[in-house]
């Protein structure tokens, strides 16, 4: 399937408030980062995709199922991990995952087996037998992820999956998401405020602001700077190197921690950097092609949207 989600002119109003305005969007397979500041309409968009809210106007489909009329089919084929801390009190972790599986029509015994299998995949240990009310934030995140995944959905919608996780758990969670997309063909909508997460796993990005889609493109395309340049990281001062490169006629920008961005690409620029470093005695830690940071892409998109509105 080349189109996982297609939306055509979807709008949503809550009384006088416009939560979504004419959202048209095509999301393909792979991992798609859904970004936007608070109040951008991401949650409303997710609820419309799941059929929990009805769009005021517009049409669309998810996994080939029509929005509005085939909501149950959509929810059966989608795994949703909400941002909110939601759980079923008085049940153990494994019972919660089994319950989620049974709601998606897995037989009771098979649901229990599958719940254990998914909790193993999510790195949950013996704590799966404890009451969920005693769980830490990190464990609850794993539990929500397991509940979203247990019925083997084609599409996963993950709302802030790494929120509240320590660095190690965060890396594990991102690794799981990557494994699911790359080895098991799952499509993933990754809705998060943690931009490095999006940059590290996403294939494409959708940025929303004020109920509109500002940017939708592949991460590769968005990361490419307008003019080619290289990024030089040094150990110690880079002032002498900067002066030498300027003197050689290269355009150089000073970045944070003495890092330099040198305009131009190809072997010629790289050789010029090595030569200047040798002459100035500067220790070069790394030379990499410069990329637009996710932060820069995000801020540009949101600010452009603000300027367009005002």
């Amino acid at each position, binding site marked *: 399937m080349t189109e996982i989600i297609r939306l055509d002119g979807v709008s949503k109003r809550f009384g006088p408030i416009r939560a979504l305005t004419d959202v048209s969007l095509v999301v393909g397979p792979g991992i798609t980062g859904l970004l936007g500041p608070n109040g951008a309409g991401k949650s409303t968009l997710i*609820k419309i995709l*799941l059929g*929990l*809210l009805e769009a005021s106007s517009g049409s669309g489909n998810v996994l080939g199922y029509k929005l509005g009329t085939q909501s*149950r*089919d959509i*929810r*059966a084929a*989608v795994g*949703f991990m*909400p941002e*909110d*801390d*939601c*759980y*079923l*009190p*008085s*049940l153990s972790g494994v*019972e*919660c995952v089994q*319950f*989620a599986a*049974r*709601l*998606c*029509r*897995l*037989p009771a015994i*098979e649901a229990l087996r*599958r719940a254990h*299998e*998914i909790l*193993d*995949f999510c*790195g949950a*240990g013996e704590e799966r037998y404890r009451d969920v009310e005693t769980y830490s934030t990190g464990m609850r995140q794993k539990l929500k992820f397991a*509940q979203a*995944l247990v*019925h*083997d959905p084609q599409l996963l919608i993950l709302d802030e999956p790494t929120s509240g996780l320590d660095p190690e758990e965060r890396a594990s969670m991102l690794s*799981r998401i990557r*494994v*699911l997309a790359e*080895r*098991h063909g799952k499509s993933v909508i990754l809705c998060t405020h943690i931009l490095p997460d999006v940059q590290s796993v996403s294939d494409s990005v959708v940025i929303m602001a004020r109920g509109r889609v500002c940017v939708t493109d592949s991460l590769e395309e968005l990361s490419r700077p307008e003019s080619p340049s290289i990024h030089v990281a040094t150990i110690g001062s880079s002032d002498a190197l900067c002066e030498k490169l300027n003197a050689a006629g290269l355009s150089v920008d000073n970045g944070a921690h003495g890092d330099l961005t040198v305009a131009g690409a190809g072997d010629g620029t790289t050789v010029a950097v090595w030569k200047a470093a040798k002459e100035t005695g500067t220790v070069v830690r790394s030379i990499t092609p410069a990329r637009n940071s996710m932060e820069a892409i995000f801020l540009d998109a949101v600010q452009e949207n603000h300027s367009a509105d005002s």
Partner: protein
Amino acid sequence: MPIHSAGYRGWDGTRVPGATRWAVIASTGVRRTWKSAWLRRMIFFAVLPTVFLAIPLFIFEQAVRTPGAWREVVDFMGVLPQTPAFLESLNTDLATATPEEIHETRHQVWAYILLTLFRYPQSMLMVLVIGIAAPPLISSDVRSRAFLIYFSRPITRLEYILGKMGTMVFFLAMITTMPAMILYLIGVLLSPSLSVIVTTWDLPLRILAASVMLILPTTSVALMFSSLTSESRYAGFGWFASWILGYVMYSIVMGLTMVSRGSLEEPGWRELLSPYHTLGIVQEWVFGTTTDETVFVPAAMILTVATIVSLSILYRRVSSPMRA
């Protein structure tokens, strides 16, 4: 951590029919609710009235066979709460009665004993069991935002409500339908022959009807209270308050009537002030101990309206967290 993990594997097994989703919610609700020690104790105590009311059944069946023992039946019935109409029916000495009179009296006595079970011990227990089991059923889902777990899956609001009602139906059937059916079975076993089933075949159906009349409105109202708040104690308070206030109001009106007229009158419409008495009127009608439709029809209407209004509010409240 597992010693061996196969990693993620897809699943392509056969799914069960979608119509069972509400049953999943109901069975999980039963499992969660069953963890309450108080509830388990009450379910245990719910069987005791059955044992007690088996005694008049035993005495009645002895009186059928023993001349002169009828007086003992009448005396024992005097211990139970009675209606004048029922007392009048206990005038025949069964030792000298015709088989038709015996069958007719047996039906009346069994129906009255079953009604007594429903009307007094089990109704009281019902108020307590619902007061413990129903308040957290939806309010805890509101508090823990579990709505997202339910409704991000292919579950409709109706299935959710049916599932929650199924949980309550299970517990209420355990304390009303099941003891009444056991009591009926005891009656059959104590009787001279299994032929009594022919003359009392309608009693199991009346038990089921009385159970529905009891369970449907009470469950709807209790779940409505539960859906109105995220704190189950408030829902519990609302539930008990509605019963206590209704009973107190009925008692005050009856007391004032007695003071103003100087004599104790038939309660009539005044019973409709109390949910407990309103349910009692309908149960009496179901078991055939009263045929007075002037009181039954308004009582049935009140219960119907209460059920419809409660379910409407419940349906609306269940969707509201998703609209936020």
